[in-house]
């Protein structure tokens, strides 16, 4: 039922009934119409398209929470993958085994650039009309319950404390990877998290 694609994993016990993937049988031809074969998976694994599919949501989520706008998040994510792809093609891929911290570093730089641009705009006299330079959840994100909560969360936490918690929420990142993204040591990340938790302890309505 489910064993064909498990070749290579613990075959000695629970992965029985496996044909060799390389052998062309009618069954495999049928199965392959539905799922990628092992060889295809390996090809995809090596390709940027695989990481794009796997990690799009992660990059988008980070951008969305940082910018609080779906259209901005979409743009930042597209730009991050665009930059990542051209770096990848030039052979400047991620240093570590996992591409996620690398992708998020790129996305973070784009987010920061946008912030700078926004701040620059804020210097023109009319910018004085802007109540603050913090992004607000915009109309395109909808005034959902989530955004109402997130606005409260964002108001109570300074940007870096907020960002470290957003990155902590990303499950595939350990403190070392978060440190690489934020330019901090592992202990720096931990201390930032404790400071964020301390802030939240004083404001239980944010998280209770």
């Amino acid at each position: 039922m489910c064993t064909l694609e498990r070749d290579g994993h613990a075959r000695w016990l629970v992965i029985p009934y496996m044909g060799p993937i390389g052998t062309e049988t009618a069954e495999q031809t049928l199965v392959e119409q539905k799922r990628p074969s092992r060889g295809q998976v390996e090809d995809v694994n090596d390709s940027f398209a695989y990481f794009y599919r796997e990690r799009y949501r992660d990059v988008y989520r980070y951008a969305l929470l940082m910018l609080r706008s779906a259209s901005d998040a979409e743009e930042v994510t597209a730009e991050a993958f665009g930059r990542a792809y051209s770096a990848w093609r030039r052979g400047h891929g991620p240093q570590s085994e996992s591409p996620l911290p690398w992708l998020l570093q790129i996305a973070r730089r784009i987010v920061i650039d946008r912030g700078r641009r926004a701040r620059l705009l804020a210097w023109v006299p009319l910018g004085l009309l802007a109540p603050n330079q913090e992004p607000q959840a915009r109309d395109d994100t909808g005034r959902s319950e989530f955004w109402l909560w997130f606005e409260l969360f964002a108001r109570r936490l300074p940007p870096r404390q907020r960002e470290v918690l957003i990155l902590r929420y990303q499950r595939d990142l350990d403190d070392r990877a978060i440190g690489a993204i934020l330019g901090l040591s592992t202990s720096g990340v931990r201390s930032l998290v404790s400071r964020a938790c301390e802030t939240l302890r004083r404001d239980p309505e944010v998280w209770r």
Partner: protein
Amino acid sequence: MNHEPTKRHTSQASEAEIMRALRHHLAGVEALVPDAPEWHESSASSQTGRRIQVHSRVRLALAPLVLVVVLVGLLIAGGFRHSPSGPAQVPSAAQPTARMPEVPSGSDCPSDQNVAVLDLAMSCLGPKVSAVTRAGSGMVGVILPDATTSARYTSYDAPYLGHAFTTAGYAGDQFRIDNASDSRGQVSIAQADIRDGARVLVVDPIDVQTGKQIQSLAATAGVKVIAYDRPIFAGPSTYYVGFNSEAAGTLIGQGLTDCALEWNVADPKVFELDGGEDTDPTALSTAGGYNNVLWGTGTTSTLPAGTTGGAGYTLVGDQIASAWMPGAAGSIFSDAVTAHPEINATLEASDSLANAVIQVLKARGVSPRTIPTTGQDATLQGLANILQGWQCGTVYKPIYLEAEAAVMLATYLRAGQDAPVALVNGDTTDPTSGVVEPSVLLRPYWVNAANMETTVIKDGLVSATDLCAVVGASLCSQYGIK
């Protein structure tokens, strides 16, 4: 979590507690995150890149103009917005990646239903285990391989597990189901789960080493581990949930004898094609099951030709398909049937092996419903062979049973209670190290043409459309496959 906390309670909240609560809130963002739009590698740089470059160039060239327009616009609007992008676009809702297979209805739950009977839907058992759920605290973390390993994890395991957790009375923040494509990903999920207060980890390890590594992390933190579908064989607090392979063998043996009667096979002269006993101990226990039915001996060794069983059965040959390879199986059977044309019944330990034999039979001009074959796994090809009269039936192992059993066992372990003996009903032994893992060994099912619609099709394992595309509408309608 909804009650107003006392000041003392709040000030003492641990980091893990805050993170857990925060995670619960932040999870609300998931519904707002769309799946990746289509990516074409060949056009990636030319499309995505160009789009971005054109954007930038246009932006640079038009920046002064845009600035003036924006400022005038803002003056008119009387406000200021940082809006460098075009009109707002709401991202499309996340596209469903998994189809929730139909979970058997629990509308007619017997009053004496208990965890000893795992064959019924969790909707029957859920209310009975919810007291145990309430007695426990902390989280259960589930770590699966991702969709590139097999479509089953996102299409079946994750929704079934989620359903089972909810039915057993878990709140949304009391369980977490994740998957990862590699060992490193699985280990970091385990670390995050442990950090966030998991009491039990349900792990389908991507490979043996990952399983052992996660078990070791869990053991250090006092977290119990359930090896889901693939045993880990490490640590004193590790359990295994999977299917009983000896029972699968028994079903194959009985399936063959029933079929031989139905197809009027007189004095069956059987050729037996065993699974990869050289590499896979489950192949051995499966052989024990069918040998017991056919020859009255539960031996797992290859039997000599001439062995006889009840009802006129004679064994013509018994061979192992090394590492379950159908390619080798085809030539093994081809040689056997050339040397012994009297062979009029066969037993195969998997659908792939059966299909290899069926190809040989077809090449020899044998008609359907003449020489039985058997199988295991309920593959699309296996099911097609059954409907077309080439194969008697196949062993089906419903994924939802595994999901439900894992959740039930996790519930007992999370509450610090001993799991009922009826649940942890056996052991699995590592043939290499001899480590024994207490196990929930689930009952597999025999699927033939008569019950295909009510089992694999109803459960959504194989879609009727796919199957009927292979066998044709008339066979589907003959067997009520819809």
